[in-house]
């Protein structure tokens, strides 16, 4: 394989991985904070794409969709958390699994009812069409934009969690929510905020990927399976794990078809099995799991 080929594949891997982070971070934050395994996360991603589609159709402006659709998804996520997940905190995690599972099925039906089952796509904004010459090879501009946005969001979140007051409360709540509550912070509001944040990120990913990929009611299922695998590899609840896991899986997706074309489907699960054998809590997971 020539050097250009390797360089291009590596960039593809970074890009695919970093884009996945937008989805996996929400999933892992929500689990890390509230012990909720959110099966509806893929559906929130799908809604981001469909809201984006409608905003683009109505306003003709892709940038408006990029702003509005994630906020709408965040609002919906907030409502879901406030009305249905909140009453179940502290119960057996199975309740959350069944609840969010139910939401995933309902949202799938709702989307098919409203937007139809046919395949659609958000048109690429003209500003981001075309390719950029990167000396060794050329690369689609929109994908570079995707990569840029993903890196910026990941870095901003990282800094916010380390440095901001809210980040400190978040990490403290994840560690011991009762103590944070006793110290005068309303943990329930922190939980809602985290759920809204996760939903906004999923919605953002939906608009971005709904532009470079097909939008159809099956997109929720295809992303959630991969996202869960990544989160398990990285360690459930770990931010760093979600980022590293997504990065590793991105590389796997990029180099897989070159080196193991017949096994691309299986590679992800083989990796997951291997990680679980060596480190049952995932790469960055805490063994006790609470």
């Amino acid at each position: 394989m020539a050097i250009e080929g390797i360089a291009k594949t590596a960039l593809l891997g970074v890009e695919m991985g970093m884009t996945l982070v937008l989805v996996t971070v929400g999933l892992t934050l929500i689990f890390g904070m509230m012990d909720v395994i959110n099966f509806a996360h893929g559906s929130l991603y799908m809604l981001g794409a469909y809201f984006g589609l409608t905003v683009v159709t109505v306003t003709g402006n892709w940038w408006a969709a990029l702003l509005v659709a994630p906020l709408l998804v965040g609002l919906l996520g907030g409502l879901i958390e406030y009305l249905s997940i909140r009453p179940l905190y502290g119960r057996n995690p199975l309740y959350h699994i069944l609840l969010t599972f139910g939401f995933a099925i309902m949202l799938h039906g709702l989307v098919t009812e409203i937007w139809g089952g046919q395949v659609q796509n958000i048109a690429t904004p003209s500003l981001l069409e075309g390719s950029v010459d990167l000396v060794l090879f050329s690369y689609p501009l929109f994908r570079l934009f995707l990569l840029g946005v993903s890196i910026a969001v990941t870095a901003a979140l990282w800094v916010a969690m380390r440095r901001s007051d809210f980040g400190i409360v978040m990490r403290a709540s994840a560690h011991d929510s009762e103590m944070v509550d006793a110290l005068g912070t309303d943990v329930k509001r922190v939980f809602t905020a985290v759920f809204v944040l996760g939903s906004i990120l999923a919605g953002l990913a939906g608009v971005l990927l709904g532009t470079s990929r097909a939008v159809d009611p099956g997109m929720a299922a295809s992303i959630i399976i991969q996202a869960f695998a990544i989160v398990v590899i990285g360690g459930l609840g770990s931010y760093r794990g979600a980022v590293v896991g997504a990065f590793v899986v991105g590389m796997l997706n990029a180099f897989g078809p070159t080196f193991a074309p017949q096994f691309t489907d299986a590679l992800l699960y083989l990796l997951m099995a291997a990680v679980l054998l060596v480190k049952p809590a995932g790469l960055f997971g805490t063994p006790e799991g609470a």
Partner: protein
Amino acid sequence: MPSERMSDEKRSVQFSRRKFLAGSGATVAASLAGCFGSAGSSGSDSVKIGFVLPFSGTYSFLGESIVNGVKLRLDEQLDGEIDGRTVEYVRKDTGADPATGASITQEFLQSENVDFIVGPVSSAVAGAMKPEIASSGSAIWLNANAGNFKLVQDNCTKYHFRTSFNTWQTSAPLASYINDNIADNVVLSYANYTFGQQSKNLFREEFEKVGGSVVDEIGAPLGTSDYSSFLQEIENSGADAVFSFFAGSDAVNYIKQFSSFGLNEKMTQTGSGFLLSADTLQAQGTAALGMYSLLHYTPTKQTDRNQAFVDAYSSQYDTTPNVYACQGYDSALAAELAVTEAGGTETDPMVSSLAGAELDSPRGYFKFKSSTHDPVMDMDIRQVVEADGGVQNEVVETLTQVEGPTWGCNL
């Protein structure tokens, strides 16, 4: 989707119990039939059609389109009657599960006494339905989408009439056109499952027969959302053209990404018609410009017959028909012809009237081949061109009366 998997499991447990009961019922019914002569279908003044189609999941859109096509003919154009007999429908959802398809079929044949079975969408489901229909012999099977050629190759049954296409027809006939007009070397890319593999293999065989060479083959898992690294392999092959099989959202992802990486400037994309069909083109947009594909139905085909169908369908359903709707419509035409010619709904006389019969299909020439009951039909080679507010397929050449092999079937 995990949710679907779980509910399918539940469903199949339920159905297997029902299947057992239905099975024992069948044995009793069959022995009684032996005593009283004809097993008989439903009441003499009605025609009953059973839809065995997906109404949920990935393929629900295809299922709905087929039903729309059938009802356009029977309910709207014939006022719900064939030859003085009232048309009745039953429908059940197969999802994508073969076992469910088989048990619905059994139920329709034995307790609903249907005269026609219309469906399924998936070839895997069709494979599971076939033994039920072949052994029952009490209904005509109008296969409105499942293209697997092996349905005809292995134990072909006279009750099976394909109102759709077979895998050979939507791939192989494009080979000589490509070799003559586009390139003598291709790379193959395909969704790595039965249908994709068959299309790729049948095309390859024909392309090599007409003197072309296949440089490489690249299979991507069904449901891949990012094809970029597969596209790099395609580019590295150095071929002048690509022949592909992808459908639905896979086709949209593949084509969009093919062009965003600039491969459309280096090689000519061709493929089976599902790659660039009416239901994906809008999402593919300008990324699909200039690409070639082969299919038996093109909504933009400029014939009076097709125009009449498109107008009727559009005014009824507020959307342009796709290939699945045409297959549904042709299933209705077949049912109409069978009942009218046979003067009733007795299965064997209907089989005789359909074998070798011609239908006035919107797709163009259409005949059920006597030896296989597969269609003999016109196939369109289309190229994607710009149109008002988007892109559309333009027929560049029509291959007339395309038959294909019989795979040893001789009915």
